[in-house]
């Protein structure tokens, strides 16, 4: 147990925020549902970008070698791209599954404060649009935007992410035999560090959340 602890610690100090951001971005891109918002990581990355921008300005002011400046600039651009794309991917998921996210507490809690604000507004806007275009023109008992009619017991008209979609993932360390198939058959899979598998997202979800597995 203790050796595992130091192991984690070593990987922790050897990973930079850039790596972490890249990993979160990849996971977010590949996962069908929205993942936990990495608020402190985003915060740190933004501070880092600002710091680097100041460095570049200083270098320019000191007439440094243009190549050095351009290398710094490229680094900033890359981090900015990762950050933007990460935030963008999340917003697009919110746009797609807003009603589902709203009614699932667990998912709602994964959004950042600003994202929640965005989601609330989007939901209100889309609801108004759907009501104006379709629902107000239908009979009373068929006017819900979540249910097909009042007879439906639960919301049966909400787009949801396909959690049993296949995703490509890479293991970060030896995970041992895992039951990855929920068909009931005994079919554990030995997962070694660095191995790449195509598995159903649903079956590996906890491993991604705990960071033992990366999506690619």
């Amino acid at each position, binding site marked *: 147990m203790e050796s595992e602890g130091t192991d984690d610690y070593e990987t922790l100090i050897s990973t930079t925020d850039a790596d972490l951001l890249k990993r979160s971005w990849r996971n977010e891109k590949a996962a069908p549902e929205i993942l936990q918002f990495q608020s402190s990581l985003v915060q740190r990355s*933004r501070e880092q970008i600002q710091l680097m921008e100041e460095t570049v300005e200083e270098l320019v002011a000191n007439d440094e070698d243009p190549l050095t400046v*351009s290398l710094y*600039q*490229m680094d900033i*651009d*890359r981090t*900015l*791209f990762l*950050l*933007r*794309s990460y*935030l*963008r991917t999340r*917003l697009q998921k919110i*746009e*797609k599954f807003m009603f589902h996210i709203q009614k699932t507490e667990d998912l709602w809690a994964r959004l950042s404060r*600003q*994202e929640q*604000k*965005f989601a609330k*507004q*989007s939901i209100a*806007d*889309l609801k*108004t*649009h*759907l009501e*104006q*275009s*379709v629902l107000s*023109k*239908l*009979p009373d008992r*068929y006017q819900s*935007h979540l249910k*097909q*009619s009042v*007879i439906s017991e639960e919301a049966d*008209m909400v*787009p949801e992410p396909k959690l049993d979609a296949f995703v490509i993932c890479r293991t970060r360390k030896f995970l041992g035999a895992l039951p990855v198939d929920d068909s009931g058959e005994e079919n554990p899979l030995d997962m070694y560090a660095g191995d790449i598998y195509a598995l159903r997202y649903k079956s590996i979800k906890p491993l991604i959340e705990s960071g033992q597995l990366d999506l690619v």
Partner: protein
Amino acid sequence: MYGRKASQLLKEFVSGEPGQLTGFNNDLFAQVIEECDGNILHLQALLRKMQEEGSNNQTNKNADHFGALVHHLSLVRNKRCLMAYVYNRAEVIQNLGWTIKHADLPAAVKEKLSISENEYFGKHSSNLQSYMLDLNLDLAVDMVPPKDPYIKVRVLEEIGEVLLSDQIANLAMHSILFLKRIDAESFISQGKMEELTS
């Protein structure tokens, strides 16, 4: 036949180019709504009749019961189709909101939207803007991973003198220049510039 018009509406959407909109089919849309109104009238009449006859719809499944069911199912199906039509178009509109601002929407696209869609586009677009403002980060640039901080572009429309992030440039028509990718991206998405790839 019930439900046919609604499926036509969807077929029309599906047969269009993905990511592009055809004109909002008000005519067909209204016809489907009309069908729904017909359905509910029949449905209510049948339900009333069943109530008057005092038949219990759990035990006594007669012709009226199934008649009512058909009308209900037709209604539900039409609703799903109409919602799918509007919802899928709304998704295209959302994507549009990422690339152009509401004010910059070309008239050719604008006339394809219904009134409500137009309103929705405006709201969605300003919602996106306010999120970016909260974060103080423009998310509409950097759509592709950066390779080089500078790219070569040709100016397609007269833009004039513009203050860019590192220089003041004269963006005259047909001129070819090296710009920072971030500066050039918004012009490219507006169609005022094109990227030259060698």
